[in-house]
């Protein structure tokens, strides 16, 4: 208690009051007088009395100094003084400060921007209670090498009832549905609807910001904060109002807290409804029993995840036996950590973000090297100041601490300047991410984590670039400096090393940028295997018309027919998923052949209408196309691509071979009637095995369809005409999207574009910084050789020879940098190879280009200092020392 009180008193003392200081002086003064009085009373002469008292008191300043040490925290105060001094230094050299702060701010801002996105998508835990206790149930799908998160509702129900390891278990799923009626208006775009068990919020430990959660079977909804703002303008009386879906009316009973947007990171939920209401409130939703759900469990305190997993597995095996559910491999069941939520975009963004983090880190390192070089050059100018300080008795540690404080102040200024840059970069990244096929929607508002990251990074940066120059600067030979002799080799060698490092790192970044730009280019300009020009994709869904099976197929056939006859349309057809969408998977067996492992018999599959292949321009190599005569009544047929033929048969003349689709009844077979060229079907990188089947032969899986329309040219009116025509065919036919293939391609390249842009931008930045650093160092080199050059010129060397001398020095540094950079780039190539397309990670051309560009820049940066040194007047050069 006393200690604490003293602590706060001292903390107050740090700011120190002048008054208290004056009081001490007065107190000592009175002390002296009292002592003199005593001495006088003892019979001394006034002079002697004063003299003795002064001797006894000792050094007044020493007393004051030890008093001050007790008053505050001296170390802290010294730090504060260093800090103020550093700020004065920064203000006294505005030019230097501006250059240093700007280059560091770019580096720190870039890092912070990328950290914000990385943190939001990869690192942050869900804003729920004790997220580390949450697990998600998953099954390993051997066929597609992925964790699958869906279970049937009845499986969930049984799991929940029979397991003992969980404090709670909730079901959740999410779908997009357009046409939600809210606040008197029908949603134009889709709303992201969370379908959850009634205990969902309780299991996650999320209390509604307003109202309550719903009960099982209640016709109610909880809306997200975002939806509340977007659709209800934050109306305070939103509770009790309703939303309409599929003709059902649900009462809003709660609003989720602002931070909580569901358990899928990057795909925020707009409103949650009870899973028990889903069959009524959602069109095309199966019965409750067959609903797909994701299962989230909260472990009981003290129960380990492994233990819970063992129990869940045993129970699940039992359930699978009893109800004969779709559980194919109960042993593959696993409990995965759910603390960070699950996220499909995460899988796609993880690697690119790691790479961008490294790239941004390299840029910052280059900026650090740059500023370290500037500091070195400046410490040249300050050598006398430092020497004088050392001579006056300042310890070397004291000088280093002061110099380090100066760099830390620079870095903190840069951190502050980097924040707006980061904000700008973050919103740019967010836009790039939102434009992509996953429409990632992240909450990227700056938060404490981001600020802490920036502050920590700035501090680290300051120490990093400040330490070496500070050590070098404090190691001065006193006598030499005071005599005015030129400096020793320490700082000079360090400066050259820094330039080599800068050039090396820049090379790494340039190579990276080159690879990513090439990748983007290759993806765009590749032969897709189909014709991309004037191809319009119309995503439709006739589910709302209520038709099924044959009637639904008939509706689509009519739609294709009518659109095909519109003016400006050259050809039209339809397919289940169409290009530029992930295709469905089909697992196959081939009767009468040696069956390879099941996993390899999984292929992409699409159900197509007649003339679909020619409409897209996917060339038929052998056999025939699907025709109107391929119906449910006729024998099953399939068309395969070359990749599939090669993979399964090792040859392409496979017309006539037979396949069995695992989804079909046993015994039924399809005959391969055609072989087509490979096409970039689902994604632009895709060239995998692919099978096309007639849609009329697969009515049980017929749902939404994509109309492919080939127009005769750019025709902005065509979209409206198609929309009108389709409305005439079937009012219930919903159009969920219309994209020109080239636009869709562009959209699907969001991540590649993001990486290429940022890598390119940072590569350029690195080049600029390296150029500045090199210019500085070469000016210095040239200045040091002025004397020598003067002698050479006076002995008859031409200016050109002198220039060549300095340029030679620069190119040596450049080549050394390249020698350092190439191995680093090659080592890093493994990290990026998965993201490249049509170019190897160790691509010789890219490497050579980067090296040549770098050498050219090195030469350009060195030219001016070289020219200046060469044209110096020989006489004045000789006098320069």
């Amino acid at each position, binding site marked *: 208690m006393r200690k604490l009180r003293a602590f706060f008193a001292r903390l107050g003392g740090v700011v120190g009051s002048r008054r208290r200081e004056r009081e001490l002086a*007065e*107190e000592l003064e009175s*002390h002296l007088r*009292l002592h003199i*009085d005593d001495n006088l009373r003892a019979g001394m002469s006034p002079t002697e009395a004063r003299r003795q008292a002064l001797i006894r008191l000792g050094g007044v300043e020493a007393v004051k100094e030890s*008093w001050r*040490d007790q008053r505050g925290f001296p170390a802290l105060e010294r730090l504060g003084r260093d800090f103020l001094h550093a700020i004065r230094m920064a203000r006294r050299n505005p030019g230097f400060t501006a250059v240093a702060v700007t280059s560091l701010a770019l580096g720190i801002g870039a890092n912070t921007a990328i950290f914000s996105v990385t943190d939001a998508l990869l690192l942050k835990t869900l804003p729920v209670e004790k997220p580390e206790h949450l697990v998600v149930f998953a099954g390993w799908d051997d066929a597609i090498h992925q964790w699958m998160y869906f279970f049937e509702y009845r499986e969930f129900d049984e799991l929940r009832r029979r397991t003992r390891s969980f404090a709670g278990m909730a079901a959740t799923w999410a779908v997009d549905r357009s046409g939600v009626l809210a606040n008197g208006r029908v949603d134009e775009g889709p709303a992201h609807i969370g379908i959850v068990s009634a205990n969902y919020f309780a299991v996650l430990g999320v209390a509604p910001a307003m109202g309550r959660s719903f009960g099982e079977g209640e016709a109610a909804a909880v809306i997200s904060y975002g939806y509340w703002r977007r659709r209800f303008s934050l109306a305070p009386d939103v509770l009790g109002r309703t939303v309409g879906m599929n003709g059902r009316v649900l009462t809003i009973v709660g609003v989720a807290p602002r931070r909580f947007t569901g358990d899928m990171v990057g795909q925020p939920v707009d409103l949650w409804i009870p899973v028990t209401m889903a069959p009524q409130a959602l069109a095309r939703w199966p019965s409750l029993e067959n609903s797909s759900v994701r299962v989230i469990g909260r472990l009981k305190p003290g129960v380990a995840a492994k233990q819970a997993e063992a129990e869940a597995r045993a129970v699940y095996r039992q359930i699978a036996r009893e109800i004969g559910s779709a559980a194919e491999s109960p042993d593959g069941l696993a409990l995965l950590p759910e603390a960070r939520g699950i996220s499909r975009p995460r899988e796609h963004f993880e690697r690119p973000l790691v790479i961008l983090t490294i790239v941004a880190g390299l840029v910052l390192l280059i900026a650090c090297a740059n500023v370290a070089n500037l500091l070195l050059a400046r410490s040249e100018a300050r050598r006398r100041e430092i020497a004088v300080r050392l001579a006056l008795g300042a310890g070397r540690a004291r000088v280093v601490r002061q110099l380090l404080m100066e760099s830390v102040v620079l870095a903190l200024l840069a951190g502050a300047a980097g924040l707006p840059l980061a904000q700008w970069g973050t919103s740019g990244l967010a836009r790039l991410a939102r434009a992509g096929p996953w429409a990632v929607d992240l909450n990227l508002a700056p938060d404490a984590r981001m600020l802490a990251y920036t502050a920590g990074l700035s501090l680290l940066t300051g120490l990093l670039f400040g330490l070496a120059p500070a050590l070098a600067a404090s190691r001065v030979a006193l006598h030499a400096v005071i005599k005015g002799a030129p400096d020793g080799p320490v700082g000079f060698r360090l400066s050259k090393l820094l330039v080599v490092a800068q050039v090396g790192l820049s090379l790494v970044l340039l190579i990276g940028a080159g690879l990513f730009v090439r990748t983007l280019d290759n993806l765009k300009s590749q032969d897709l295997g189909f014709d991309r020009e004037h191809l319009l994709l119309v995503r439709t869904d006739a589910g709302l018309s209520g038709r099924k099976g044959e009637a639904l197929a008939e509706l689509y056939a009519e739609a294709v027919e009518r659109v095909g006859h519109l003016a400006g349309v050259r050809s039209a057809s339809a397919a289940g998923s169409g290009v530029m969408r992930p295709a469905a998977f089909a697992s196959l067996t081939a009767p009468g052949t040696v069956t390879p492992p099941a996993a390899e018999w999984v292929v992409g599959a699409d159900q197509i209408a007649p003339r679909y292949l020619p409409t897209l321009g996917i060339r038929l190599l052998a056999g025939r196309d699907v025709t109107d005569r391929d119906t449910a009544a006729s024998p099953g047929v399939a068309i395969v691509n070359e990749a599939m033929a090669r993979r399964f048969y090792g040859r392409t003349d496979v017309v006539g071979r037979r396949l069995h689709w695992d989804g079909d009844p046993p015994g039924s077979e399809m005959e391969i009637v055609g072989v087509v060229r490979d096409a970039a079907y689902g994604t632009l990188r895709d060239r995998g095995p692919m099978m096309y089947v007639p849609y009329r032969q697969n009515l049980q899986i017929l749902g939404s369809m994509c109309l492919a329309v080939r127009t005769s040219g750019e025709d902005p009116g065509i979209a409206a005409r198609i929309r009108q025509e389709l409305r005439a065919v079937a009012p219930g036919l919903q159009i969920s999207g219309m994209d020109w293939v080239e636009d869709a391609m562009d959209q699907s390249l969001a991540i590649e574009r993001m990486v290429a842009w940022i890598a390119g931008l940072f590569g350029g930045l690195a080049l600029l910084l390296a150029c500045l650093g090199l210019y500085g160092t070469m000016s210095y080199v040239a200045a040091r050789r002025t004397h020598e050059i003067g002698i050479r010129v006076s002995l008859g060397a031409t200016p050109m020879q002198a220039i060549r001398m300095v340029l030679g020095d620069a190119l040596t540094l450049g080549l050394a940098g390249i020698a350092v950079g190439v191995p680093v780039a090659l080592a890093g190539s493994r990290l990026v190879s998965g993201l490249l397309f049509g170019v190897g990670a160790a691509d010789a051309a890219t490497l050579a280009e980067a090296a040549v560009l770098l050498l050219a820049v090195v030469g350009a940066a060195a030219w001016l200092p070289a020219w200046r040194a060469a044209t110096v007047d020989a006489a004045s050069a000789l006098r320069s020392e």
Partner: protein
Amino acid sequence: MPGKADVWQGTLALMILKTLEVLGPLHGYGIARRIEQTSGGLLSVNYGTLYPALLKLEQEGSIAGVWGVSENHRKARFYKLTRAGRRQVDKEARQWEQATGIMSRFLAPGERP
């Protein structure tokens, strides 16, 4: 100052407090004098230690300083014990007596318990 010991580390605070308890409010010079006198001239108070010690006790809330006038009409800063200071004197004095008791028992020649 030959022949005189500096005040031992850690005992100065107790001496100050005890002095204030016995003599009432007193200025720094008086406190130093009193300590030196009580020790029979064996101790010398270093002012570079005394004033920080006074400040420390003030920060801890054991004593409080106010400006006043000395008996010979000099302006001086007087220190007086606070209530917490009084409690502290009792406590520390007891601890000190215990400690010295133990030490003297060790040092007493040939005595058996």
